[in-house]
């Protein structure tokens, strides 16, 4: 016999002093208010990461990331930051999603089509636009394992050892992937097309 009565979310935010770790602990004992609070704090970063990994609507992966986090909350031991832990889950879910899709053309096209950040001077603006477009396309064209490593370490700023842990790879493997990604992207700065 397996049963569970669960409370309903009331919509208010828990006290601001609660740390991420406290929220995860509360999730571990079935507190859905804490899950909502955790979602509000981190869904932006998770959405950003998933959108860059997948290239288009990442909602399903974002949602499943938090569901996995909810289910695994009791096993969270604080070996990484909560944000890094969530990003690691998101990376796993995104990888699985990419495998299911079988091709990544949509990701490339979608990232290419996104609006670009602009520099102040019109001429610089144009150059900057082209540079950013090339780098965005280059990132989207990376193999998934290089892309997730580059996104986590470079854009999300997750330290290498932590990223290796959450991606479940050896540190040496992570560094090799990061170097490979950088090696492939560097020529884009000189005007090469991805």
């Amino acid at each position, binding site marked *: *016999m*397996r*049963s*569970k*009565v*669960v*409370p*309903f*979310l*009331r919509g*208010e*935010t*828990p*006290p601001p002093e*609660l740390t991420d770790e*406290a*929220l995860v*602990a*509360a999730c*571990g*004992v*079935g*507190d*859905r*208010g*804490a*899950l*909502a*609070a955790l*979602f*509000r704090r981190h*869904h*932006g970063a998770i959405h950003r990461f998933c959108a*860059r990994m997948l290239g288009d609507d990442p*909602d399903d992966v*974002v*949602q499943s990331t*938090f*569901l996995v986090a*909810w*289910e*695994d*909350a*009791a096993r969270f031991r604080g070996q990484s930051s909560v944000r890094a832990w969530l990003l690691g889950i998101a990376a796993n879910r995104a990888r699985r999603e990419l495998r299911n899709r079988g091709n990544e053309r949509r990701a490339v096209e979608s990232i290419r089509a*996104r609006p670009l*950040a602009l520099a102040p001077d019109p001429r610089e603006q144009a150059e900057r636009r082209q*540079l*950013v477009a090339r*780098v*965005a396309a280059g*990132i989207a064209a990376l193999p998934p394992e290089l892309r997730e490593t580059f996104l986590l370490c*470079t854009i999300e700023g997750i330290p290498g050892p932590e990223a290796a842990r959450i991606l479940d790879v050896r540190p040496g493997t992570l*560094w*090799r992937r990061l*170097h490979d990604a*950088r*090696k492939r*992207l*560097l020529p884009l*700065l000189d005007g090469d097309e991805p």
Partner: protein
Amino acid sequence: MKPSNSPCPTFEELSRSMGGLRSRRIAAHLARCETCRRTCAALAELEEVARSLPAPTPAPHAARRMEETLVAIAPAPRSARGGRPLPRRIAAGAAIAAGIAAVVALFPAEERAPLRHLEASEGARFERLTQHPAGDGEAAVELVRLEQGTVALQVEHLSPKERFVVTTADAEVEVRGTRFEVDAEDGLLRRVAVSEGRVEVRVRGEPPVLLLPGQRWLRLDPPAPSGVDQMASADALEEPPVPAASPAAGIGAMAASIPDEPRAIASGQVRRRSPTPPAPSPLEPPGAPAPSPLEPPASDPDDASAAPPVFPAEEAFASGWAALRDGDAGEAARRFAAAAEGRHDALGQDAAYWEIVALGRSGAAADAERRMARFLERHRSSPRAGEVALMLGLRLAARGDRAGALAHLRAARTDADPRVRETAGQALDRLGDPDPDRLP
């Protein structure tokens, strides 16, 4: 020191030196090697450009919708599903069995066949559950547990081994292939309207009512706060009001959830009456069927003779509840404090308890914590002492006061309420209680 003609570091070494501590050897080499400096500059530029990529952000309404969905569909966490000591499992099972009396599990909506369509009003709070048959002769039950708002449902014709039930804290609405709407407020059934098929409405303490197409059931007189008798009954466990930091609410929700109704107040029940009939549902179609003869007659709000006498503390208690319902938690806390002032009876205990809840909800967590400690000093034998100990234990755990948390959680683990015991046990497990059998 390496000689000046030492070979350049590899690309991997330069790449790894980005954004971290750079070895003395590489730093020294960079000082004299223009090529390697250019490589490092390019790596830095790449990083800068990558970080400046436009960040895809979710639309706020989409995020809000996802958050609500997430909370509704999140299954019981793994820690709550296994590995607990047997007595806690039995206690947890008994508590739930009192409510729904069978196995309940959460599944994604698409896996359920009988419910063909469900439409919820804005802000509706509900969840779906599947109650699997415990034996061959029993039916599988699809449950929609509605707490707030309106849900419109269309249910396929059910086989004899299937049941579909909408539950609120005080009622069940059972169907056998139909189209209907159910409306609830604060967990209590407010309205049922049937478009097709037949629906049986079973409200606690009232005889069942069978609704045919075009008929509606309406509650015109909201129920009063439940009394001691109800608290003592097994039914009181069926859909329990979830206290702010009750077992289920946990650390994070001290300010995020409040109980639906006081479970008991002292002498002199404060009965509220609805001055107007319930507002029409947002999902109610134009030309909705007229009220059926089955609808109960409206009560007369001016009929003061039926109301029991109201004393100042009770009035303060009732006004505290009104403020809490209006969303003014700070004012509610002040009124509950006034009601609790100088009283050690059941009303004083309840008022003190609700003051804690209101403070938590208003975000005054530190004040709430102080009131919890005071509550436990003054009302050690209160039926609410276990819940308050649990709240305080969870709060202290969140603040990192492990020793204090253990003491209060151990006390909560001996509470009469199995849900309090269960969550206290889970929290103690999470804290790694070195002596789980130790009594407080």
